[in-house]
């Protein structure tokens, strides 16, 4: 028995199932699956692909060749990979393929709270949902069996509280890997209308068979108890239900799509009333009602934010018209200073946002650590939509408003993910935006994964580090500059110069993420308390190592990374190197 996180258990499940290829793109809370799978690198080829669509296609073709493959991503990643998903459902697979998608109810680390279960119905593929680490591992093995039995990709949906919770898991042995040989069969693998029409018909037949299978499957189970009150639930929510309603009868769905209609009817016939307890949308509830079965659900259970034992206890009190339990101690958050996430001390992104402050331009931002440049005191990003949007939205604003200059800011990993096509658009359609790539040599926000510019693969091998400047040149950008963001004078000069010109430019701010390299940029700084005039200019950098209350600011020597920015902005020459 081992204490594993849901993500480690999914990785272990892939190993035991005989998977030989795993691809993905980082995204909280899914990232640690591939980080963990590297320990099986003698048996599994694993890669960070540039984005989820590429990862999905790599894994699809591996499965069409007969291998068992895995692809992992966060919920919004499946939007990026939705195109291949929808048609792979027609083609199907030979070797098993599991698509792990990780939802984030409560938006702990995400830009939205979408419910990925809709993709299963949308694409007509089966979906499994584990409720702890043991099930995460077991369901992976089942998912590969189902995938090969029905010739379909299977989605395994996890979420923050499964992926990042740890519980005990029984380990098993690895199954023998499939023999892999791509056998040509155009009528299955080539989706032109003539063949796709045939596959479309087969897809419906397969779905029907899977529904019958779901009714028999041991992934779904009834736990009969007090029959006056029945609950239908799935995933981690099941665990909360067990604690909040210990006496209720439960239909626990592990195979959440296609719906096990017969089983739902059976359960309904055994209990007097039904409550559907599900996180986010009314996915199950709506279906139960469509079967003509009366139930309660979202009239009591919130559809916004995440569920928890505390939330469900309040629901229970409301249903029973009792007062909600009073907690003995109250949070006193109002009396406390806010503690939002911030760019690390010494973060290379800080210098760019500081330099941008001198200009009255619209700044289109993107997703990564540098999103934190939105907040005070840097306050630089005016719009953030989705990965890659930083470049294309700059272009959209510029074209629509005829603003001479719009700045687009994007990270290196995000540039490779989906920024390049935006840059092509700007050059092709004669835009004039200034694009700044914050190249910290790594995928920072998700915990430092290699990317095509890092020169290292997920498997730990060195590889060609793709040059962002070369890509810019190939796209036809004439004005390309590589700058060191710790050199404020040069950084400010280049940014000012490029904002003034009437053509597109690409500025690459190149300096490694300090949290990743774990080395100070130079020796720590200190603020000379005698000469400091308390003008508080240095505090406008928002560096967490510069601390100030009522009195003069000082530098925390334990957290300062010696980036020298504060020294460069001090007008009274009061900040120096600790010798």
């Amino acid at each position, binding site marked *: 028995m081992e*204490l594993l996180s849901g993500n480690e258990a999914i990785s272990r499940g892939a190993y035991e199932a005989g998977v030989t290829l795993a691809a993905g793109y980082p995204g*909280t*809370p899914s*990232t*640690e699956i591939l980080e963990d799978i590297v320990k099986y690198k003698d048996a599994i080829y694993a890669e960070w692909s540039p984005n989820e669509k590429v990862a999905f296609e790599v894994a699809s073709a591996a499965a069409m060749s007969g291998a068992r493959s895995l692809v992992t991503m966060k919920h919004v990643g499946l939007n990026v990979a939705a195109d291949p998903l929808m048609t792979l459902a027609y083609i199907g697979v030979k070797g098993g393929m599991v698509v792990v998608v990780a939802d984030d109810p409560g938006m*702990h*680390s995400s830009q939205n709270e979408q419910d990925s279960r809709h993709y299963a119905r949308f694409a007509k593929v089966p979906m499994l949902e584990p409720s*702890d680490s043991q099930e995460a591992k077991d369901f992976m093995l089942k998912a590969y069996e189902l995938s090969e039995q029905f010739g379909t990709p299977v989605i395994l949906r996890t979420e923050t*509280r499964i992926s*990042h*919770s*740890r*519980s*005990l898991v029984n380990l098993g042995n690895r199954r023998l890997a499939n023999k892999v040989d791509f056998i040509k069969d155009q009528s299955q693998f080539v989706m032109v209308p003539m063949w796709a029409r045939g596959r479309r018909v087969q897809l419906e037949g397969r779905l029907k068979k899977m529904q019958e299978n779901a009714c028999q499957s041991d992934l779904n189970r009834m736990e009969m108890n007090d029959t006056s009150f029945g609950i239908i639930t799935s995933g*981690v929510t099941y*665990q*909360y239900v*067990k*604690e909040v309603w210990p006496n209720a009868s439960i239909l626990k769905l592990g195979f959440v799509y296609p719906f096990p209609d017969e089983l739902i009817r059976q359960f309904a016939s055994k209990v007097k009333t039904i409550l559907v307890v599900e996180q986010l949308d009314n996915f199950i509830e709506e279906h139960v009602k469509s079967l003509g079965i009366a139930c309660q659900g979202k009239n009591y259970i919130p559809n916004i934010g995440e569920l*928890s*034992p*505390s939330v469900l*206890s309040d629901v229970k009190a409301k249903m029973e018209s009792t007062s909600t*339990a*009073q*907690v*003995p*101690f*109250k*949070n*006193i*958050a109002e*009396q*406390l*200073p*806010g*503690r*939002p*996430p*911030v*760019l*690390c001390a010494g973060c290379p992104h800080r210098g760019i946002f500081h330099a941008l402050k001198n200009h009255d331009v619209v700044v289109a931002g993107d997703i990564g*650590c540098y999103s*934190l440049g939105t907040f*005070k*005191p840097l306050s630089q990003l005016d719009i953030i939509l989705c990965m890659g949007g930083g470049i294309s939205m700059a272009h959209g604003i510029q074209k629509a408003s005829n603003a001479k200059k719009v700045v687009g800011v994007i990270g290196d990993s995000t540039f490779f993910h989906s920024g390049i096509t935006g840059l092509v658009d700007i050059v092709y359609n004669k835009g004039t935006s200034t694009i700044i790539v914050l190249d910290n040599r790594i995928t920072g*926000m*998700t*915990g430092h994964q290699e990317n095509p510019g890092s020169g290292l693969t997920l498997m730990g091998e060195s590889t060609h580090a793709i040059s962002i400047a070369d890509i810019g040149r190939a796209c036809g950008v004439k004005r390309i500059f590589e700058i060191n963001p710790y050199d404020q004078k040069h950084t400010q000069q280049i940014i000012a110069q490029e904002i003034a010109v009437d053509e597109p430019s690409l500025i690459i701010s190149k300096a490694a993420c300090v949290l990743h390299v774990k080395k100070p940029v130079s020796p720590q700084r200190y603020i000379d308390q005698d000469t400091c005039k308390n003008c*508080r200019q240095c*505090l406008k950098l*928002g*560096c*967490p190592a*510069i*601390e*100030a*209350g009522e009195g003069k*600011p000082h530098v*925390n020597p334990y957290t300062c990374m010696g980036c020298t920015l504060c020294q460069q902005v001090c007008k009274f020459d009061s900040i120096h190197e600790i010798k």
Partner: protein
Amino acid sequence: MSNDTIVSIVIAGVGGQGILLASDITALAALNAGFDVKTNEVHGMAQRGGSVIGQIRYGKKVYSPLVKKGTAQVLAGLERIEILRYAEYLAKDGLAVVNSQMIIPVTVSMGVSKYPADAKQLLESTFPRLVYFDAGVEAAKLGNIKAANVVLLGAISNGIGLPLEAWTGAITKRVPQKFLDLNIKAFMAGRNYK
């Protein structure tokens, strides 16, 4: 402990303070003592200096990895004021354990909010069972300030009934051999704070 009792612990801190290791050692200690265990820790955005919590639950059979409000036997803080954001997790007779280290948030340095001047008093008036001390100083005395979290674990261990060998076994499994002696001493130093 009766058969259906679940023990819950919540540890609060600032992203980057090493909550993961603290909750890992606690979970392992419970496992060593023969219990079913579940934990949950925050990953992602909040790890960049934001407010984070780790949750550990153990007992004969644990369902939810999340602690219900008002039920934690111990609420611990790796930083001076962080547990005040999570006070509602603590059970009526629960123990609050706080490292007096201060990490000034950027919002305070910017002048948009204030760090409570009387944090200790605020803690004392909120929690009847409070252990408040500088774990960093204790760790520094032993030669390495990085062992502060393990010092705090020593104090946390007084709030729950796990046997000492369960803890030392967990520490042995989780810290590198060359720091083992230091960490065991750190843990024992923390146990003196009751």
